[in-house]
């Protein structure tokens, strides 16, 4: 499988954000084991951020995130070809038995996706919010170079906050 004009580059940045476990509102038993993985693909570069308590099985290293993003990049592209009518922009939601994958693609072609527990709501809102964070804390950083891996601490901080806020809202529901 080739990616046409867009090459997959091998620069990856992986970041794992651990959820603090002293959340008193955390339901017991089956509870929420919400896994968030936020990915951002552009021209084959990947940013990955995970917030999870799946333990070691859910953890991703650099190679894993590269693999996931490459897979998604090509699946997204292929899905456009499956449409019976033209003008399809690719998969928005992928539902599997163990996870949901929500994808948001900006008009500039940057893809953001979040992998979460099946049935998790309001992911579109979260993705749009992450897009705004990306424009604020990544693109406006004069030392961020376009199409390079994101190493912006402010972005990480705000992303963590957004995901945690979302998680709290989820648990409150």
């Amino acid at each position, binding site marked *: 499988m*080739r*990616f*046409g*004009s*867009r090459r997959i580059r091998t620069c990856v940045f992986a970041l794992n954000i651990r959820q603090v476990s002293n959340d008193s509102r955390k339901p017991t038993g089956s509870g929420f084991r919400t896994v968030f993985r936020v990915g951002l693909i552009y021209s084959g570069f990947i940013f990955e951020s995970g917030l999870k308590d799946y333990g070691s099985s859910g953890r991703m290293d650099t190679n894993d995130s590269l693999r996931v993003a490459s897979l998604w990049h090509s699946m997204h*592209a292929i899905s*456009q*070809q499956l449409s019976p009518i033209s003008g399809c922009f690719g998969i928005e939601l992928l539902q599997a038995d163990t996870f949901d994958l929500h994808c948001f693609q*900006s*008009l*500039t*072609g*940057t893809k953001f996706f979040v992998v979460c527990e099946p049935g998790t709501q309001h992911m*579109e809102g979260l993705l*749009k919010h992450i*897009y*705004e964070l*990306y*424009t*604020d804390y990544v*693109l*406006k950083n004069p030392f961020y170079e*376009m199409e390079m891996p994101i190493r912006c601490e402010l972005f990480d901080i705000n992303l963590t906050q957004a995901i945690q806020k979302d998680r709290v809202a989820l648990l409150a529901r």
Partner: protein
Amino acid sequence: MPPVGPRSGDAIFANVERVNAELFTLTYGAIVRQLLTDLEEVEEVNKQLDQMGYNIGIRLIDEFLAKSNVSRCVDFKETAEVIAKIGFKMFLGVTASVTNWDADGTCCSIVLEDNPLVDFVELPDTCQGLYYCNILSGVVRGALEMVSMKTEISWIRDMLRGDDAFELQVKLLKQVPEEYPYKDDE
């Protein structure tokens, strides 16, 4: 989720963070002045301003899309309207108008009656060839390139050269669709 309609330029402008217009205008003036000192040639300064604008445009487009909620434009006419009515309002605080369409709808003019960049500017005789606001043309070019539109942008009227308004001619060269070539032999 139902698509959220585009917000008007005024509504967004009211919500985004703003800086003092004078600070902005004077900072831009200082940059242009420094470029003139560094590069010496007016032509080079024009080029540099355009390049700086381009670099801004390719980043700014994402902020524009994220905060304005505009959806995909159906044609270039809509694109031009969105730039003039929402884009300029959101980032520059002024509204522009779109006129002078050519027959096939690929070339138009964006007219700025009011331009905060030139509030205190008078071009000296030595800088007559300078397009003082050339950064704006670069921004528009860069932003459109990120949504797959190659454009060529030139100044038709310039208030600093005695015209009654700023007129930016935007010519659509080609639209590159975001598609992946699926030919195996490529």
